[in-house]
């Protein structure tokens, strides 16, 4: 049989001597050229337009702008810290067998995901209208307007709102860990909470980190809405300046460039963080592949 097959004059099987011609992507070159032309038009339009670029440069490192930038970064860090803490806490509560804890957590997520963030900020900021003084009766109390500064109101608004979203992210991370891991942890005598802390959460991080990284980036930009309650972050300080000097677009550009700079740095950080937490997974996939081949 085999002899008859090889002996018949068929196609030339010896293609090792031939060279491979790389595909030429004419379409890509054409599209790139077209986009380049459009970009040039846009750049030229802005260069010729009524924008005082010198003012942009001049105010780029103005003290008020830099203070605003620092405040933006501080608020992002504090609000995310509060958000992640609350998120983990409420995710664990939602998954708890205790119906009281579960009910509280469900209510929290329902309320803070169900109302606009700007409304929540205004509520916190105007808390003094409802409660002129806060504290424990007869022991200690403080005037609410002194306690709820723009910083505190913003922190509470952004952090607590973030917590409601992060709780869902953490919950999906916990659910992504195989239930066999919890059973094995139980079988060596771990309590539910110890198993969560030592076994489940470290493995859930792989799923939790990428979306939380995303949320850090959106938090940088979300802080800008705190300008409505007079927290002096970068956008509000840019506005304060343009109310005085009327260079509206210029000051907005200054803020935009700073936002882009911060987000760019964070995106690079996120990339490396994801690679770090994806390590074990890649290893597993490799082993699975070689296992399948074997």
């Amino acid at each position, binding site marked *: 049989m085999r002899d008859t097959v090889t002996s018949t004059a068929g196609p030339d099987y010896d293609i090792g001597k031939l060279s491979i011609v790389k595909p030429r992507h004419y379409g890509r070159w054409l599209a790139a050229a077209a986009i380049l032309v459009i970009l040039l038009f846009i750049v030229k339009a802005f260069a010729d337009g009524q924008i005082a670029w010198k003012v942009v440069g001049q105010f780029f490192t103005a003290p008020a702008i830099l203070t605003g930038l620092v405040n933006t970064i501080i608020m992002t860090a504090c609000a995310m810290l509060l958000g992640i803490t609350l998120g983990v806490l409420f995710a664990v509560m939602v998954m708890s067998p205790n119906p009281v804890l579960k009910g509280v957590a469900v209510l929290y997520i329902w309320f803070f995901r169900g109302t606009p963030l700007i409304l929540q900020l205004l509520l916190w900021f105007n808390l003094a209208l409802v409660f002129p003084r806060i504290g424990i009766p007869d022991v200690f109390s403080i005037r609410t307007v002194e306690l709820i500064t723009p910083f505190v109101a913003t922190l509470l608004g952004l952090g607590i709102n973030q917590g409601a979203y992060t709780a869902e992210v953490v919950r999906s991370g916990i659910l992504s860990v195989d239930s*066999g891991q919890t059973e094995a942890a139980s079988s060596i005598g771990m*309590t539910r909470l110890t198993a969560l802390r030592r076994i489940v959460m470290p493995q859930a991080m792989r799923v939790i980190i990428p979306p939380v990284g995303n949320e850090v980036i959106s938090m940088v930009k979300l802080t800008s809405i705190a300008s409505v309650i007079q927290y002096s972050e970068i956008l509000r300080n840019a506005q304060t300046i343009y109310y005085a000097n009327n260079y509206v677009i210029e000051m907005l550009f200054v803020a935009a460039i700073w936002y882009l700079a911060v987000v760019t740095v964070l995106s690079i950080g996120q990339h490396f963080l994801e690679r770090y937490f994806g390590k074990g997974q890649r290893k597993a996939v490799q082993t699975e592949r070689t296992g399948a081949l074997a």
Partner: protein
Amino acid sequence: MSVAMQNGPMLVARNLKKTFGSFTALEDVSLDINHGEVLCIIGPSGSGKSTFLRCLNQLERIDGGAVWIDGELIGYRRSGDRLYPLSDAEVARQRLATGMVFQRFNLFQHMTALQNIIEGPVTVQRRRRAEAVDEAMTLLERVGLADKRDAYPAQLSGGQQQRVAIARALAMKPKLMLFDEPTSALDPELVGEVLNVMRGLAGSGMTMIVVTHELGFAREVAHRVVFMDRGGIVEAGPPQQILSSPQQARTREFIAAVLN
């Protein structure tokens, strides 16, 4: 082989009942196991043998009946003629008496072989780390994997993972070892290495309950074989009797089906 008799049985299960919704997984299962006894449970899938094992270390809640391990009532505290369910922490403490080996190994994926083994002694039993590492290395040698101490589960074969899982369970110094189909998820050529470790363990006098489809292993190592079907014990006795000359028609059918 002689079974060492100490005061009272190691495990007593009386009239166990377990339901999942309308499905009855266990119906009136009673079984005693002596100190040092190796018991193999065989039976078709869905017969309730894994559920029985999971009830013994409270991974499943028992719906009726009771279990005593080494004289201690499982899951409840008795006060006069009342039973109070135990807290999460008390159940966790009771589980220290049993070691469990799972079909899917369930090694902690983010820990090396060594870390998997010392996790229980260090985190749960609060023993000194150096001491736990020493004992873990002895166990790794015993299962023939001392050179894999720093390997992650994903880098180990199924057979190696299962041997580490056995070492992890033994590190807690349990009174009783439960094996839930320990070789069912393994490629055929890896089954032998795991059975060898279990054979060694049985030889050392460990009390073992093994849910398995390996009839050869049951014949060679078990003191007693139990055949389960449809949530109940159909027949129990010495391996020769159950595997070679079963009394019940259902047992005969099952063994004939497995051997072919």
